[in-house]
């Protein structure tokens, strides 16, 4: 496997950057992820960070060197991240849990599969054309698709999401793929700060015209320019698929993964996990009774 990858994250006009991104890989598989902590709830950046950590830890645990079942891994990793966020909130007696979106792609055996929850997107571009992109779990996008038709004012609720990680209701997520990659394919993961300022045509154009080391900074810059001083965090991670060869990374930039709330990640059901499950259930009972 050979690919080049480039990632950029910018704070924009916000006080803090609640976006997170990163990737890791083994000889036979790679995972790329991007999370966008949500405003309106506390500590969005924590939810974004935890999700990244949980998914990375599970990937390192399970990809030896490949994952047994990619789709299964993606769903269980996202579920585990969601639970970890809820645990974080419960342990700190937070009234409201931090929340985040997530988009993550796994490449293995020349195939790419991805999962997303919320409005962080994945774009797959082949030979200058947009092959596919994820559909946001937002009312706006679902109205366009003619699916659900909640009666909400278009202006105020364009970006309102109906699912995310860390919410009290179970997150909804979609797994897509696997799609066989061809040489020259481009994959982009980005937060809404990027796509809300640019059209799909713009994004496709930039991605297909130049190497990712140029297109990613260009895309982020134009998104920041369009949004002006009040810009949201803008984050993008793109990779170009090169000849299936050895798993070599030809280009990287530093990841924005930061420390601070590192927690051991729980995968197995040990004594501590049993106690946490019980505490979680009792917390849910208290909430249900309070309703």
């Amino acid at each position, binding site marked *: 496997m050979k690919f080049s990858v480039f990632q950029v994250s910018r704070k924009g006009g916000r006080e803090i950057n609640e976006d997170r991104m990163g990737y890791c890989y083994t000889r036979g598989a790679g995972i790329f992820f991007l999370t966008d902590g949500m405003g309106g709830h506390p500590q969005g950046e924590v939810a974004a960070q935890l999700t990244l950590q949980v998914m990375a830890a599970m990937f390192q645990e399970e990809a030896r060197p490949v994952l047994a079942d990619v789709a*299964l891994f993606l769903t269980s990793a996202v579920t585990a991240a969601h639970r970890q966020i809820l645990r974080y909130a419960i342990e700190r007696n937070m009234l409201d849990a931090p929340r985040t979106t997530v988009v993550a792609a796994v490449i293995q055996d020349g195939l790419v599969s991805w999962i997303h929850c919320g409005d962080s997107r994945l774009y797959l571009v082949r030979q200058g054309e947009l092959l596919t992109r994820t559909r946001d779990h937002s009312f706006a996008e679902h109205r366009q698709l003619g699916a659900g038709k909640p009666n909400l004012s278009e202006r105020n609720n364009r970006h309102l999401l109906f699912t995310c990680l860390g919410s009290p209701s179970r997150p909804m997520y979609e797994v897509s793929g696997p799609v066989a990659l061809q040489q020259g394919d481009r994959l982009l993961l980005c937060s809404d700060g990027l796509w809300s300022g640019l059209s799909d045509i713009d994004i496709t154009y930039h991605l297909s015209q130049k190497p990712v080391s140029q297109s990613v900074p260009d895309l982020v810059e134009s998104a920041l320019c369009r949004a002006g001083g009040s810009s949201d965090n803008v984050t993008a991670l793109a990779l170009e698929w090169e000849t299936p060869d050895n798993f070599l990374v030809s280009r990287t930039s530093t990841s924005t993964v930061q420390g601070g709330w590192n927690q051991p990640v729980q995968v197995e059901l040990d004594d501590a996990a049993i106690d946490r499950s019980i505490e979680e259930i009792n917390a849910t*009972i208290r909430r*249900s009774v309070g309703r």
Partner: protein
Amino acid sequence: MAKVKPAPLPPDTMIGGYRVLRKVAAGGFGVVYLAVDSTGQQVAIKEYLPASLTTRVPGALAPEVPPEKLSLYRLGLKSFFEEGRALAQISHPSVVTVMNFFRENETVYMVMNYLEGASLQDFIVTARDLKQAKVFRESTIRSLFDEILRGLRIVHQHKMLHLDIKPANIFITDDNKSVLIDFGAAREVLSKDPNFVRPMYTPGFAAPEMYRRDAAMGPWTDIYAIGACIYACMQGYPPNEAPQRLEKDRITIALRRLRGVYSDNLIEVVEWCMSLDPLSRPQSVFALQKELSREGERHYTKLSAVEKVRLQFDTMVTDNKKNGQKAAVVSGRDK
């Protein structure tokens, strides 16, 4: 060699601040006790004690788990937690309430509100022994399932499936409320857990997709079971098992017998719910509720004389098959 079941906790044992009064039920997962809390309020406590994985000598508190079964035991614990999680989210009069969850005696306990009454199963058996044309009145059936469907709708809204709906798991309390109990088989709809185990099923009430490994389960799976429960309330007996139906489906004939006794609409609803093809069933509880709560005059289509004769032949054939006698004589008519 037959395995000795783990012994239940003796009366007056204190667990988690509750005093055990007696064992009220037992299943593969463990034991349910009637207990009282410090204020004297009665509760039902479900103890995680899988009979196949644990042993407990009478009088002991902690179950013993052989080391080679420990991982399976922990796996089962996950399902027990799933049941707790499922129920903890839901607060609805038609769904059993979980009040507390605690760890003691090296196992786990779920405290639920204690219901006084009897299961729908008990009521069906009592009613059918009266040998009347109707097992239950149609209005009784409609209002009973209206309540149950309200609860089931909330369950589905939480993205959970019950997966073991049957008259024995529908409880009628002494103050005439119907409550959905035993979520031991309940699953997250979206669960792709690597440890996802297909739940146990109850023949007659389990939809055909429950027998297959690859089939998608959804609200329609619970809806099949609801249809089968209504069927049992009309006939007094559970319907044929799904695999049997796939071979030769006698549901339509069985329901025809009820024409004139129950309204055409109710009979059609049951047939709709019990379609073998999941896509032909009501796809949501709401769709079913709408049909079941439809007001208006009930239409009854009486059987014609010819149909009655045909049904009689049918009964003969079935009876003969059961007895294994004279089958050859009438088999020609059994088309």
